[in-house]
């Protein structure tokens, strides 16, 4: 009985999810992207200090499809996208499920600034397909999806909304705390915010910014305070990438986590990957945005607790 009621309450969100997936495919089809499927179960995830892959036998369930998609870029596929179920251990909260859906797309020959424009187009397209138009609201806050969105460097966001400047937050190891608790709630209304140029340590797979060696060409999309996507100009220097993975693994070990095997096949392919940019969009959170939902639980058929 209670299960039926839950479904009834979620029906609108689940229908929205289907419409959003349909619009997503139509958008990428219209732009000449190839939809791909890569294995969900992989022999080694990319070493990142704060992402825990879920073991599946001696292998892992992928925390993101990026490793295989970049190898496809290297193999000559210039525009690809994928809608993939992903798994991350120890992540559960109002915005997190250990199993969730990512939309990732990669495009050769562009950098993160051009990718930001494509993101604007993508959200506008979805809003159009859903029939809402660019003016929506999320949690009582007005949103105007029309271009151009706000472009805000991370350092400026700390100066504007944080209790401490960026350098100090980094020195005190409080970057995430200030960002999540003080800055994020203020971003993305009425215009969506493209928060960009992260400290290099927070963009382990992103290209170092020319002329600004301490910054990575990474950006995040915030709409109505909700973090929706993470994109960057891809790092294509295999040597530098290897060094960054080693540092991430060191960080993992220092925090009592197991290091991951060096992804040799990926590093080998990276050296012939073209300049490109790519992004991961949280599909569940896109549904939350358009369904005006406050918790990710409201936009999935089942949460793990309901199984």
């Amino acid at each position: 009985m209670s299960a039926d009621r839950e479904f009834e309450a979620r029906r609108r969100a689940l229908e929205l999810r289907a419409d959003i997936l349909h619009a997503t495919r139509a958008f990428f089809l219209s732009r000449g992207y190839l939809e791909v499927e890569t294995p969900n179960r992989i022999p080694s995830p990319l070493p990142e200090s704060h992402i825990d892959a879920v073991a599946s036998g001696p292998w892992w369930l992928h925390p993101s499809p990026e490793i295989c998609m970049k190898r496809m870029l290297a193999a000559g596929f210039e525009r690809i996208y994928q809608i993939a179920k992903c798994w991350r251990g120890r992540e559960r909260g109002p915005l997190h499920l250990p199993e969730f859906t990512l939309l990732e797309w990669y495009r050769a020959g562009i950098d993160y600034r051009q990718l930001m424009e494509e993101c604007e187009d993508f959200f506008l397209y979805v809003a159009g397909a859903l029939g809402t138009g660019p003016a929506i609201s999320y949690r009582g806050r007005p949103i105007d999806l029309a271009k151009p969105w706000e472009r805000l460097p991370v350092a400026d966001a700390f100066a504007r909304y944080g209790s401490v400047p960026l350098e100090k937050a980094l020195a005190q190891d409080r970057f995430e705390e200030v960002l999540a608790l003080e800055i994020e709630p203020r971003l993305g209304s009425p215009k969506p915010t493209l928060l960009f140029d992260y400290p290099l340590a927070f963009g382990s797979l992103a290209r170092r910014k020319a002329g600004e060696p301490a910054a990575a060409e990474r950006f995040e999309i915030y709409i109505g305070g909700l973090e929706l996507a993470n994109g960057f100009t891809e790092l294509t220097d295999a040597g530098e990438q290897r060094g960054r993975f080693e540092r991430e693994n060191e960080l993992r070990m220092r925090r009592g986590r197991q290091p991951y095997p060096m992804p040799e096949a990926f590093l080998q392919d990276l050296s012939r990957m073209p300049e490109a940019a790519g992004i991961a969009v949280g599909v569940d959170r896109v549904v939350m945005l358009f369904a005006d939902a406050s918790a990710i639980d409201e936009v999935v058929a089942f949460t793990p607790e309901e199984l």
Partner: protein
Amino acid sequence: MYSASDLRKNLRIMLDDDPYIVVDFQFVKPGKGQSLYRCKLRNMLTGSQVDRTFREVDTFQPAETEEKNMQFLYREGDAFHFMDNESYEQIALTAEQVGDAKNFLIENMECKVLLFRDRPIDITLPNFVDVMVTEAPPWIKGDTVSGNYKPVIVETGYKVSVPPFIEQGEKIRIDTRTGEYLTRVKE
């Protein structure tokens, strides 16, 4: 020892040398960053609440609390006497330490007493307790409108709303978590 990822509602941890219980908890993780754990905690000694944000590197000692099964023996003025079911040792709690539980404590009742460094700080009662109604206004015949309730007093001195047909000398069942009347108990 607990790590931050063990934090959840009702976990009891030591903080600044006091025992705290997590009353509210939220997992926060900015993209690709380290996880944050926003907690509301209640000091189990003073009852005061604090907001704290922990990071995944933070660790905690479990609260030095111990739960013991005890039997309530009797009340003597402001002193509530209990017996430890294992050691048969007797302890006395003040009315303040007993708190709202005093409304439902009847002799020989089994309950759980929470101790912090041997000091009693909380009592958990059975969810339901059957008590005798000691004072009840008479039932006015004909007053059968549903939703009508009247106040009565039970043997512990607790005042509760019951349906009009409950009379003095009858036993009723109360939910100790809400303090509300559930049903009449037939002997």
